[in-house]
């Protein structure tokens, strides 16, 4: 095979391994090393709902333009699982590379592929590590071989291992030595036949690498979270675990040494939401984090919090449903459920972060919004953001002070009572914005107490079944949600002069859409893009639909849930909306988005 033009910083590698074998360390190490070389990277972990022994894949994409979406074809496959070689063949691009242990049977392998067999067993034997560590060291063999093949700076690998093992010298050394041994073996024994390689560049400045659940937890702690209740569920668990991890660092009062944020693992989601709502009612910034099935369980209490006007933040890290679905795969399939959650007429405040750094930002903003509006706020992330490592903009310290909304302590209440003829009405619309004033337990003023209930109540929180009072209450709540827009993150518009078509999407669909827009441009198709960040919708959304010939709504579900809600809210503009919805558990790829839009433009 002749020397090809090198392909630099532009490829996709998939690591095919067996889960529970410790490959995550190897994969993240390579990803971090590339990141430290200034190369934009993204990683997707495709893993089973299982602890040990099942196939798992990690896809690492390097993109000099900084695209972060999943790509469907692999340029390189590191095949460590002999049972899935046929699967790997399907996704390996023409002339692609396969790196595999030298004892795997290769008869079934396509003949257009460049093969690099590695003596994994031999190198592991030579590493002289205890049997319990052999699998881990075996993974470091492919790190070394890939490093040689792509010309990855070994020093960056060393730093990545140092970070991963938090400087524990023994672990760093044994892993790094295995990497170097494999690197040297490859250098001495392999002949490079493929075009892929890396070069230092300047594409990661101002960025960090982290996941959305860590970002959401940190954002919450900066938002002044005081009480979190949670129950384990994939893919939301690591959000609560991150709270536990960073709480001692960030929320130990330096003066008293006491915790200013309490985290409780509850007996189930029914209790988690009950605790969070109790705390929100008590005047704490409170939250819970869960996924679809947990949210189903929480729906009744969320309805009560809406109706009794209790602030609470709920993180929904979405996974594939209905039912238990695919717990370890990603989706945006809870949107209509959340929008209509719980019985009776109602609206929900929904925030949809479109990047990991926005998970941080919405993490703290959600508490301001919940308390300003005195209502539940659901932050809708998903497994792709929550559990994958992302290159993302550095977290920025909140740009405004905490806003606790219309909360009245003793002194505030005293002043207000002078204006209100001495009577406190918890549900009175004093300001005409639909948002009443609230007091919380502990207030010692004898007028502060009131009876909170899920039953019909008048402006003074007294039980009533009077038809006019009920209607008045429901209309005020509607007004409150009209007011809501001024507190919510507005949609983000990316204009493309001369564009006649528009694209709407949200959340983790964003990276694929951003890349697809550039791909469409190559086909001389111009598209404007509106990324929705909150519900209820701003008027800009309606205007965006009205000012384009066609608007493609791109989302990760079967039914086109965002499109459904848009159609319901803007029935006059609905016929312009085109569904681009897909859910197979994997993140969207830009080429799929492009192809769908092209296809449906012609239709």
């Amino acid at each position, binding site marked *: 095979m002749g020397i090809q033009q090198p392909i630099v910083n532009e490829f996709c590698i998939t690591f095919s391994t067996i889960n529970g074998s410790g490959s995550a360390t190897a994969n993240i190490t390579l990803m971090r090393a590339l990141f430290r070389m200034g190369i934009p990277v993204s990683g997707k972990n495709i893993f089973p709902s299982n602890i040990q022994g099942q196939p798992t894949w990690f896809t690492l994409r390097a993109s000099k333009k900084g695209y972060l979406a999943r790509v469907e074809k692999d340029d390189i496959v590191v095949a460590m699982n002999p049972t899935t070689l046929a699967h790997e063949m399907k996704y390996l691009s023409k002339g692609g590379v396969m790196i595999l242990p030298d004892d795997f049977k290769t008869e079934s392998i396509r003949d257009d592929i460049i093969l690099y067999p590695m003596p994994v067993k031999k190198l592991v034997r030579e590493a002289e590590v205890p049997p319990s560590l052999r699998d881990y060291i075996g993974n470091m063999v492919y790190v070394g071989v890939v490093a040689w093949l792509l010309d990855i700076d070994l020093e960056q690998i060393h730093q990545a291992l140092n970070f991963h093992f938090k400087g524990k010298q023994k672990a760093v050394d044994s892993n790094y030595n295995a990497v170097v041994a494999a690197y040297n073996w490859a250098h001495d024994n392999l002949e490079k036949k493929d075009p892929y390689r890396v070069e230092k560049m300047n594409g990661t400045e101002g960025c960090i690498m982290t996941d959305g659940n860590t970002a959401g937890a940190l954002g919450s702690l900066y938002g002044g979270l005081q009480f979190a209740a949670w129950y384990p569920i994939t893919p939301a668990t690591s959000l609560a675990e991150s709270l536990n991890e960073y709480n001692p660092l960030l929320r130990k009062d330096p003066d008293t040494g006491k915790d200013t944020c*309490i985290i409780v693992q509850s007996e189930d989601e029914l209790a988690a939401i009950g605790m969070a709502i109790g705390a929100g009612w008590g005047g704490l910034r409170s939250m819970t984090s869960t996924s679809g099935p947990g949210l189903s369980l929480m729906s009744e209490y969320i309805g009560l919090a809406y109706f009794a006007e209790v602030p609470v933040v709920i993180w929904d890290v979405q996974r594939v449903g209905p039912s238990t679905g695919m717990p370890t795969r990603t989706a945006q399939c809870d949107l209509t459920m959340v929008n209509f959650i719980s019985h009776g007429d109602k609206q929900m405040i929904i925030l949809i972060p479109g990047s990991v750094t926005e998970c941080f930002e919405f993490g703290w903003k959600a508490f301001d919004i919940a308390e300003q509006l005195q209502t539940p706020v659901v932050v809708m992330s998903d497994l792709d953001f929550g559990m994958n490592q992302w290159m993302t903009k550095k977290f920025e310290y909140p740009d405004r002070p905490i806003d606790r909304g219309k909360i009245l302590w003793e002194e505030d209440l005293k002043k207000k009572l002078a204006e209100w003829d001495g009577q406190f009405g918890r549900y009175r619309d004093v300001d005409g914005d639909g948002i009443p004033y609230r007091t919380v337990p502990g207030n010692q003023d004898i007028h502060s107490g009131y009876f909170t*209930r899920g039953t019909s109540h008048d402006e003074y929180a007294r039980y009533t079944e009077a038809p006019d009072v009920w209607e008045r209450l429901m209309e005020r709540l509607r007004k409150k949600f009209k007011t809501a827009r001024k507190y919510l993150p507005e949609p983000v518009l990316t204009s493309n002069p001369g564009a006649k078509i528009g694209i709407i999407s949200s959340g983790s669909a964003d990276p694929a859409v951003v890349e697809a827009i550039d791909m469409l441009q190559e086909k001389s198709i111009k598209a404007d893009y509106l990324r929705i960040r909150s519900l209820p919708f701003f008027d800009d959304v309606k205007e965006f639909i009205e000012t384009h010939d066609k608007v493609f709504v791109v989302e990760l579900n079967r039914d086109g849930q965002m499109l459904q809600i848009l159609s319901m809210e803007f029935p006059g503009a609905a016929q312009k909306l085109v569904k681009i919805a897909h859910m197979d558990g994997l993140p969207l790829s830009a080429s799929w988005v492009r192809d769908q839009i092209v296809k449906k433009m012609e239709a």
Partner: protein
Amino acid sequence: MDQSQIAQAMNSVNSVGLTRNDYRGAPSTLCQGCGHNGIAAQIVAACYEMNLVPEQVVKFSGIGCSSKSPTYFLGRSFSFNGLHGRMPSMALGALFADHTLKGIGLSGDGDSASIGLGQFKHLVRRNLPMVYIVENNGVYGLTKGQFSATADKGLSLKKQGTNPYLPVDIAMEALVANASFVARSFAGDPKQVKELIKAAIAHTGVAVLDIISPCVTFGNHEESMHSYTFGKEHEEPLHEISFVPARDEITVEDFEEGTTRDVTLHDGSQVILKKLEKDYDPTSRWEALRILEQAEKNNWLVTGLIYVDPNQPTMYDMYNMPATPLNRMTEKQIRPARETMQQVNDMMF
């Protein structure tokens, strides 16, 4: 008492300067003669006599007749009427907002012994400091008379036929969940109800009070354990009970030496149990389990303080909580300093 004496009694103030009137709630909308009304009256009396400030008390309830009753006492206090069986979780969150407040939870058998059984037992297991009263009548009143999970096996109701299931015993469930205070009483015995409520209020930890409270409309059948007739005829008090607040000097004249037993609660107050026939030790969990088992075998309604451990660590002890109530924290205390942002970004990769 004539009218003027009643008026005088209503106007006399306790040590925090409040009259009984200050502890009242809205007029009851429950049925005439409902056991729950008597319990509400005893809560009013107990809080007045314990000199609680209503703003220092928070009321919680779930769904059902019992859960309506927080409306009928302590009208000045904050109150949260939550979801069926899920008051415990909500109360937990709310009390963490201000741990200096006294929580009083009102629940029923439909609320705590069915959908709420899990939350009830987990609350007990965590020993969250609050009074947890179960107004237990063995019947669903608000939906007009279905069996609850505490109804006796073999009991007949007009539309329901005969109950085929064995009952859930609230006191037993609390005990096996490691409750630090378990008492049972009978709404028809107001003095004992009041003294037990006072002891429950003084207890530092969860205090479970299972109060048999007959449903006069749907469940007051003579053969039912949850009826006035049964209660009056089968009540087996473990002891006569008197509660003495911490600051009162204990007078021994009322309690003959050798026939009383004192239990000192965490705040220094005492429960004085005047022994009846049995030599009962309420600090022994073993004894408590035995007496409940024996009562069931003999068809007794055992009442009194069944079990107490004043020293069991509470849920607050399990967290590193500030002395200031969490809901009084300032922005400076709950938002990390600006300079930590760089440190956090450096901790990512």
